[in-house]
């Protein structure tokens, strides 16, 4: 059984893309998983086929002649040296013991030295690998966060664009004639069922009175309460309102003067009204 991780390493190996710790780990896996060498051989024999996708181009004819002319002579088998007259040297153990010990020491030192350097370089490669993985993860996180922010903005922009396209605006005119300069504008968002009322130069009311906004929808017998408000000394007010009941076909906004706190059904005089 070959898992995806080893398939991946085998594929990278086929393109000579493995290095350091990855290569060491893969070579180790090669010796322990009997199915892996076959996959490696298959992939290493498949990869060169990609070379055949290169557009076929013919080299200059001179190249053939140049190569054929530069072929080196086939190296002859190394000549067997003539056997010299054998001279028998008596073996003296004491003479060789010191040299043998030194040679063994040198071999052992070389072995452990090479192991040390191999382990050191492998550790270094592993650290680099870990660092790369960490950077990659961090980069991915940042990318996801950036995409999330971007998506949120796009959604907000879309919502905003949708809201603006659906907004309805009504200018309310003075009905009583006692404040002809009064200006009242209602901006209504039918999707959100809310709006903003801005008034200027409305007369300041007595302390026991409030202005009350009414939303007229033919679906209801009586205008729907949009809330109460007061104006400042200059007759200014800007209030966000939401009708008590859901309205689907608003035709008119009206402002009446009512007793403090408002009333469920308009009783006082209508001071301003306007339609879309």
């Amino acid at each position: 059984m070959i898992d995806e991780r080893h398939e991946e390493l085998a594929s990278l190996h086929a393109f000579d893309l493995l290095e350091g710790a990855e290569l060491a780990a893969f070579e180790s896996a090669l010796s322990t998983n009997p199915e892996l060498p076959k996959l490696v051989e298959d992939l290493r024999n498949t990869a060169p086929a990609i070379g055949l996708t290169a557009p076929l181009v013919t080299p200059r004819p001179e190249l053939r002649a140049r190569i054929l002319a530069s072929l080196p002579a086939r190296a002859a088998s190394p000549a067997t040296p003539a056997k010299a007259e054998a001279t028998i040297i008596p073996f003296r153990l004491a003479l060789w013991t010191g040299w043998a010990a030194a040679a063994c020491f040198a071999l052992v030192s070389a072995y452990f030295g090479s192991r040390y350097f191999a382990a050191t370089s492998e550790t270094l490669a592993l650290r680099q690998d870990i660092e790369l993985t960490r950077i990659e993860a961090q980069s991915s996180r940042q990318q996801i966060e950036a995409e999330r922010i971007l998506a949120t903005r796009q959604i907000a922009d879309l919502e905003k664009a949708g809201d603006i396209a659906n907004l309805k605006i009504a200018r309310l005119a003075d009905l009583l004639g006692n404040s002809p300069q009064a200006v009242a504008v209602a901006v209504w968002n039918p999707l959100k069922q809310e709006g903003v009322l801005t008034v200027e130069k409305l007369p300041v009311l007595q302390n026991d009175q409030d202005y009350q906004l009414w939303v007229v929808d033919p679906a209801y017998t009586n205008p729907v309460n949009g809330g109460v408000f007061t104006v400042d000394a200059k007759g200014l007010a800007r209030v966000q309102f939401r009708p008590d009941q859901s309205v689907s076909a608003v035709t008119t906004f009206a402002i009446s003067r009512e007793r403090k706190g408002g009333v469920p059904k308009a009783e006082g005089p209508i001071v301003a009204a306007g339609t879309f």
Partner: protein
Amino acid sequence: MPTQGPTSACMSRASEDSPSPADVQAQNRADAELLRKIAGGDRDAFAQIYDRFSRPLYSVALRILHDANEAEDIVHDVFISLWNKAPDFEPTRGSALGWSITLTRNRAIDRLRSRRRRSELLEQAAPADLGYEENPPDSATSPGELWLKEKASAVRRAITDLSADQRAAVELAFFGGLTQQEIAARLQQPLGTVKARIRRGLLKLRDTLAGRL
């Protein structure tokens, strides 16, 4: 290149107009025989191998290096290597052509990496930018040339069957002379994604081309 039983439905596409597995095996045996003769010092066999392999090997070197003179140098070195290493060739481990392409790719990539103007040339090595035109062979009707063209067509069809992402990843892995990280940077994808694309692409190629390499 080794053979393997049909394992994928997508093989049908690769088999259109491509050499049959039996033809492929026969041609591979003939190439192996030429290499055996070359190992024995047969210069005529070497000339035959040159005539068969020079176009694909030169094309691979040119695709990697984008420089005709350097590509010729590489092909020169590779054929001298084939002459010297012919005794080492093991026909049971793959085809002579695949072995030769691998030698060419390795040398071309070594050259690419050692170039002073490396960064500029890597820009030119983008998979979609071939930068040169395919030209017709001198002996278009020779059986060897025809066989090569059919085989190349089968591989191109198999490559086309990969998704665009997989194709870009495996082509860059083969021709680009880049590290894993450089491939990921070039494709502007996370490293893990690139590794997965190379894995899926190469496994699919193996299945599609089974018995045809």
